[in-house]
């Protein structure tokens, strides 16, 4: 007995070994000898599960990923084919004639580059000011006690709940007769609400920021206060650097929501100025400018529609590919967890 204890355990020499010259299989046998029936059953079950589950999981994930990626593949496949290929029964995925013509035509119809310019200008600008204003408001709600805080936060929740459609008409009238000015069709009617924390889905963003700042340790600020920092300086110098990843995630959300929005922008813009609006009205635009009101079968029209989709999502898709890591990993630290 003592002899066994004093023998030093030799290190495993290969992957197959666990030490003392035993293979994994032998070691398991010895362990199994000391187990009762229930334990053995449990071991068997978990081993079986460990083998079957990854296979099962692979199929589930593969299938679901397919459902998600499928439209993208379809989009790409359609956008680069000639319209005639749509009616060709032999063409399923790979077009018979590869062509860039459809893309070029769609770009012309959508007036792509100038539209893209306006959209980016609106989009990125609005997102930036929105994130800033929502962060400030969220911080106020998270860290300061003041009278009526519950009631005011109720307004934030109400902002999440009220559909935009309910308030779109009064908002239109507000911007149409904004004092002596008519702000309809100017970027201001997107910028003003965003800058004051009432833009698209601002309620949700204030909520996220509040949850996030609540989660940060209080000591951070107390230290800054003791050193003589005012609350605003503390916010800028201490809190913002700590909330970087959260800021990035919310900013990405904001960009995506502004990019995809067409309801709000169609209320305030009578001309098609953003990519989403262009896309919404693409079929009308196509028949007016490209087909000269001639009859093109709906099946063939798909080619241009899909090309339009591809053009519209390409910019954010590229952005997503680059920032994907922050988007999917950063969310875990973004304060969505209360």
């Amino acid at each position, binding site marked *: 007995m003592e002899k066994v204890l004093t023998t030093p355990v030799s290190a495993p020499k290969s992957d197959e070994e666990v030490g003392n010259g035993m293979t994994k299989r032998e070691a398991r046998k010895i362990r199994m000898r000391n187990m009762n029936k229930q334990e053995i059953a449990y071991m068997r*079950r978990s081993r079986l599960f460990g083998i079957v589950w990854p296979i099962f*999981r692979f199929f589930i994930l593969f299938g679901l*990923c397919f*459902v*998600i990626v499928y*439209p993208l593949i*379809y989009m790409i496949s359609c956008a680069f084919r000639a319209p005639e290929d749509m009616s060709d029964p032999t063409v*399923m995925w790979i077009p018979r004639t590869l062509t860039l013509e459809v893309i070029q035509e769609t770009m012309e119809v959508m007036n792509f580059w100038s539209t893209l310019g306006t959209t980016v200008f609106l989009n990125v600008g609005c997102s930036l000011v929105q994130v800033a*204003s929502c962060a*400030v*408001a969220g*911080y*106020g709600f998270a860290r*300061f*006690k*003041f009278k009526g805080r519950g009631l005011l936060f109720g*307004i934030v929740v109400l902002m*999440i*709940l009220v*559909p935009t*459609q*309910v*308030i779109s*008409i*009064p*908002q239109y*009238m*507000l911007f149409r*007769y904004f004092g002596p000015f008519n702000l309809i069709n100017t970027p201001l009617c997107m910028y*003003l*609400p965003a*800058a*004051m*924390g*009432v833009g698209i889905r601002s309620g949700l963003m*204030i909520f996220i920021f509040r949850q996030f700042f609540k989660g940060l340790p209080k000591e951070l600020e107390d230290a800054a206060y003791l050193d003589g920092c005012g*609350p*605003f300086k503390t*916010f800028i110098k201490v809190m913002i650097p700590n909330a970087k990843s959260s800021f990035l995630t919310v900013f990405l959300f904001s960009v*995506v929501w502004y990019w*995809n*929005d*067409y*309801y709000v922008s169609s209320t305030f813009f009578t001309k098609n100025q953003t990519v989403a609006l262009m*896309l919404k009205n*693409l079929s009308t635009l196509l028949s007016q400018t490209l087909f000269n009101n001639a009859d093109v079968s*709906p099946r063939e029209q*798909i080619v241009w*529609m*899909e090309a339009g*989709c591809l053009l519209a*999502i390409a910019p954010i*898709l590229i952005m*997503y590919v680059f920032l*994907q*890591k922050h988007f*999917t990993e950063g969310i875990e630290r973004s304060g*969505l*967890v*209360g």
Partner: protein
Amino acid sequence: MKMGYEKRKSMYGYGFIALWFVGALVFFLIPLVQSFLYSFQDIRPDTGGMVGGWVGLEKYNYALNVDPNYRQYLVSVLQTTLWKTPLILVFSLFVAVILNQKFKGRTFARAVFFLPVIIATGPVFNIINGNMASTGNSDASQFSTMFSTDLLGELMEFLGIYGISDGVQQTIETISENIFGIVWNAGIQILMFLAALQNIPASAKEAAQIEGATAWEYFWKITLPNVSSMILACFIFTIIDSFTDPNNSVMGRIGDLQMDWKYGEASAMAWIYFAIVLLAVGIVTVIVNKFVYYEVD
């Protein structure tokens, strides 16, 4: 002038939310009240603003009893939300649990699953959905066209549940036909559940392993209680997302009426709709809150 520390801090609090408050007042609260008032008026635009006379509840009567489509749309949107919401929740929790495990290609899988968050909210979704449906490429049939078989039917036959009861079969078929919509609407929910899953303390998992819990038991005893507070959040988010989706038929009807300058009717419809949304969210909150488990800190 000297103020107490607490008082000064609360003043700073007002300072932080002041900008938002002014914005909310001008761009949110006042329009909200205005639209409520519009719904009782015969409203039309005029230079300088809206003019109209009081007509009482006439517009509400119009929305519910006269308009040929509104009630029908309302019922259909409610129905869709009713059966889709639980499905989206179960699905997103399931996917989040899988994506939380360690395996090769996890980063890729995650990136793919969050892709809909980027694309699905815009008009792109409608177009691809519509285009694929018109070429027989959407939903479950996309597999069928690929493998040129009725995959779903065969699977059900294989499992021995083909034709057991029409009800079951119909449910399965509806679900499979809508899998596209469900997968594409679950992005944010998956994200939220994943965040909650990552907050489960490692000690809980370890304890469960030592006690010999099966994966099934682990899910019910550890995972579910820990994400239950997120279930409420996801529930509400899903309901609101579905109700406020500019693509649903009620929203479409309201938009059409606005185009026709029938602002009174549109406002009345929007408010009826909003009242229903509030009611739904309220009911869900009360019910789900009973089952939510809050860790006592």
